[in-house]
């Protein structure tokens, strides 16, 4: 009987450790993609695309870049004018 509280304490400690480990693992698990592919129809609409026409985007990038000190970071492929 003397060992009962001690065993109970050990069991509680083991259970707590198990719960903590499970919670920690659960927290570390990768989240699931929350927007399913069939829910992306609106994102594919041309109105959602900022740079729909690559030639147009490249020209606007060019006219800004040759007149400003800043450059890059716009995501326009082939940006940068290669000119002086």
């Amino acid at each position, binding site marked *: 009987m003397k060992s009962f509280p001690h065993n109970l304490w050990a069991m509680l400690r083991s259970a707590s450790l198990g719960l903590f480990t499970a919670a920690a693992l659960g927290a570390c698990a990768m989240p*699931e993609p929350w927007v399913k592919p069939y829910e*992306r129809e609106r994102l*594919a609409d041309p*109105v959602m695309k900022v740079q729909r026409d690559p030639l*147009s985007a490249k020209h606007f990038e060019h006219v800004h870049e040759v007149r*400003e000190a800043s450059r*890059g970071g716009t*995501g326009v*492929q082939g940006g*940068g004018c290669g000119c002086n």
Partner: protein
Amino acid sequence: MAAIEAATPRFRRALRRMRLALRTLGSRRSEKRGLPLLATHLMGALGGLLATGHAHAVELAEDRADLMLHSFDGGGVNAWGPALLVRKNLLNKVSLFGTYYADIVSNASIDVVTTASPYHETRNEYGVGVDYAVRDSLITLAGLYSTEPDYIATAFNIDVSQDTFGGMTTVSLGYTYGSDDVGKVGEGFFSNAKHWRYRLGVTQILSPRWYANMNFEVVSDDGYLGSPYRMALVFGAAVPERLPPTRTSRTVQFRVVGEVAPALAVRGEYRYFWDTWNITAHTFGVGAATRFGEKWLVDAYARGYRQDGALFYSDNATSETLYVTRNRQLSNYTSWVLGTKATYALMRVPGRYEIFLNGAVEYWKTDYSDFTDLRTGSLYSYNATVLQLFVSAIF
């Protein structure tokens, strides 16, 4: 971004199949033998729509051809010319593209009229490249060659984008190496400059109607980075500008795009730039895009830009320094842009091709804080108009 962009042609193809199935339904209603064909079409269409999601793989950009006339007019500079883009898919694995771009420049800008003579010149730029799609990755290799009477630039770039996290996240990496020959009319080519650009981009789908985008780019330059024609003022006397031979800049941009009502998208963006010449710049942008009827798609946007100039920029230096410039591109200024773009669907032959007419215009207003117009003695400012007219064929 590739996930979002790839979804567009895939959806279009699926919808074409659905329309074809519905047309078949109308034409074969009275024919018993039409039912199996109809069922095949409908199943194909539904399969196509479902495949938009589950069979995740990057798709190549659509085949297209664009022919554009562009112009910039403002601040004494007129630059216009044609531009061309052709893109063709081969074996559904690679997409080849080629570009041509010309700038026919008449320059009587404030720099030119106060320290030199107005001039005319033409810049021709040629580009070729290939996209290669493999599973969830898109690999792009491209080269560019630009030539002017006193400047020749060659660049090579490689970009890789990878869809991940169920297609909700697209990560892209890019690298460009450029080498330029710098010359002066009458003296020939006398120096060179090299450029290295490193890009990182992440596009994240946030919800069925919103996505965000982050781009980071580092650019390093080494060589002759100034202009052999440009003069600086030191104690009121004109001297050739002197610029450091190296420069490294970093740019980070954040953008959010969302659909707030059916076929009405809004966007907001912010870009921060800083470099080793002590230049910093903030760019803010807002815009909206919507459709009018079946044929029109219209964009409108505003852009604000604020730049703090280089450490060695001076309108009129009052001490001798190792580096000095009066290049207003490196000065302190604020610029505002209002822009709009309209696309009209001229012709649509479902499953075969679409032809669009496009027009875009930007109106600029730029005010310098420490660049004096030597003709009037007041601070310089200018307005400009940028125009694009082009036709696009997607097939």
